[in-house]
């Protein structure tokens, strides 16, 4: 039982990352109907930007110029990195996706892949092949609850991830911008005719998605403090699986599917020999899709959503 609970905790943390990244995928994909394959690398860049900002703030603190407590540094880091990365996301949208809005969706997928490669290689050129350590902003404290080990980081990660997902959900449900986004997701062709500024919505979508990716990157850096330029690739593709598994256009679906993917990966390794983890985990995903061909919360495909 404690093993199960321990793994439950582990899976919650692991799923948080998938969920946060999958939300970004899902938003772009439901509103603009694009695969944003650069998203995994935006996550990577966000983590590096966050790392840079955190080091800067800590450096200021060490120099005695601006001494802040750890949690404030963390908060500031997340906020600033989200803003910067959101800018990066908007830039990517402007350069790589806007010119391709009328093109087949797969073409945009290729520009996404290529932007990803440029981000990776650029990072390698700028920072060299040295891996970067993410600074510890809050001291990890381990506590034991009936045989289950928890850390303050784990709790924080899950709380922040859920909080951000919830905030985004509220934003999309409650605000006019959110309404415009939902409308675009509903009908991409007609809504712009009703006076919804498509370019601004697209930019906003990318900004929000990239911001969340940056937050995920920093949380990732807290939990697994080794950053390398290629860390976004596997994350990107797996979150892509989660985003689509959740169903088209569903923030809730993407969040749940992200957690689900985390749970599957962790619990498969718990029950079966861990060498077979990928084999079994992705067979389960395949089976889910055989029986629910449109994802967990998706609607059947209509003609206008062709690739």
């Amino acid at each position, binding site marked *: 039982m404690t093993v199960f609970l321990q793994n439950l905790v582990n899976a919650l*943390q692991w799923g948080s990352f998938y969920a946060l990244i999958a939300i970004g995928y899902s938003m772009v994909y439901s509103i603009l109907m694009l695969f944003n394959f650069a998203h995994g690398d935006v996550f990577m860049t966000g983590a590096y930007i966050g790392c840079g900002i955190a080091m800067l703030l800590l450096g200021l603190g060490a120099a005695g110029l601006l001494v802040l407590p750890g949690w404030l540094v963390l908060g500031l880091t997340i906020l600033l990195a989200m803003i910067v990365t959101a800018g990066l996301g908007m830039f990517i949208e402007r350069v790589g996706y806007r010119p391709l809005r009328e093109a087949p969706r797969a073409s945009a997928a290729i520009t996404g892949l290529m932007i990803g490669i440029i981000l990776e290689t650029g990072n*390698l050129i700028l920072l060299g*092949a*040295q891996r970067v350590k993410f600074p510890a902003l809050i001291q*990890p404290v381990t506590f034991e609850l009936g045989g289950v080990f928890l850390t303050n980081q784990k709790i924080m990660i899950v709380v922040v991830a859920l909080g951000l997902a919830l905030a985004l959900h509220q934003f999309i449900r409650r605000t006019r911008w959110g309404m415009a986004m939902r409308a675009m997701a509903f009908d991409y062709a007609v809504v712009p005719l009703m006076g919804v500024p498509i370019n601004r919505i697209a930019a906003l979508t990318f900004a929000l998605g990239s911001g969340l990716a940056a937050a995920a990157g920093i949380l990732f850096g807290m939990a*697994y403090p080794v950053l390398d330029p*290629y860390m976004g690739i596997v994350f990107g593709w797996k979150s892509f699986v989660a985003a689509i598994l959740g169903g088209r256009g569903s923030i809730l679906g993407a969040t749940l599917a992200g957690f689900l993917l985390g749970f599957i990966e*962790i619990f498969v390794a718990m029950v079966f020999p*861990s060498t077979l983890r990928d084999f079994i985990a992705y067979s389960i995903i395949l089976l889910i899709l055989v029986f629910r061909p449109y994802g967990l919360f998706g609607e059947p495909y209509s003609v206008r959503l062709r690739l």
Partner: protein
Amino acid sequence: MKNVRLCTVLFAVLVAVLGLALFPAAAQKTPVLKIGINAEITGDIPKVGEATKYAAQMYVEDVNKAGGIEVGGKKYRLELAIEDNEAKAESAAKAATKLITVDEVIAIVGPQASKQAVPAGEVCNNYKTPMVSAWSTNPNTTKDRPYVFRACFLDDFQGPALSIFASQEYRFKKAAVLYDVASDYPKGLAEFFKKDWEKRNGPGSVVAYESFTTKDTDFSSQLTKIINSGAEFLFTPQYYNEVPLIVQQAKQLGWKKPILGSDSWASDELVKLCGKDCFGHFFVSHYASAGAKGATKEFIDRYKAKYGSIPDDVAALTWDAIGLIGAAIRNAGKLTGDVKKDREAVRNALAQTKDYPGITGTISFPPGSGDPIKCANIVKINDKGEFEFYKSVCP
């Protein structure tokens, strides 16, 4: 009419281009020997490629500063031909072919990772070009290939060495193993360790044998299993970039027992990335950077001064790999200028290497094999985060 005009134009272009081509004066001809570098500069493991490149460049600069390498009474300048194999098997084969047939190198260092080294070794062996992989531990790399060598020790030595250490030093009976199933180096090592450990302590004495996949960062599920298995220590033959994650997560999940590692831990980045959590653990290494003496210390200091970081195992092994080639060139007797004959001579000299004083240990190649015989050092990460020599295990 048109044809005539066209021909005039073509002729004029020809004359102009030929004139330009013949203009530059012939460069002075100092005899040059080229050594190829086939490294993973982009792709999954850029750090490996970078360390390879740096160590090789430093070696070549040294040799050239001393006036070149002397063979049969004649001095040769060394030159590097560096190719990136993008961490892809087919690209490594292409790069090896290019180095051999286009750049006409006398010998090749790398590729380092086995995924690239095995196909590149095939190419080098077919073209009878000596190749030394510094880092590849896959038996396939050198097996039945008289022209392919390696500078590191093999899994079937390192695994048992650790097993001996753990049972003699601590009298442990129950071991746990955590390794990357998709990467052949950790997997090979884990298997050899398990085999030897069970031979010593009876079947079932490896109480947890857990794995993950390359690029995974979360090991909580596997570690939870390991912690509940009652193992007395954990052996994890992972790379230094993964070790901090494993060690820290283990600690956060309540693990307090020792953790043992392999030579892939040996990098100053380990301590930089891991911090205090890694202090007190042991690993096998080719060399220990703290308290190193003689040539090893000199190498470490100069590398650090030049590139700003303490060399990791790849850099140290590459230094030895290219050093082996350099020594073989010196011992080749006389170079003919015919690259094919020279390669043959270098390969013969390389195969006869005996007691080469490398910085990662004394290297000899047994007859008919490209796998070196060398000793392993058990290294402890001390309380200052330095790698301290603890004990030596020889085959």
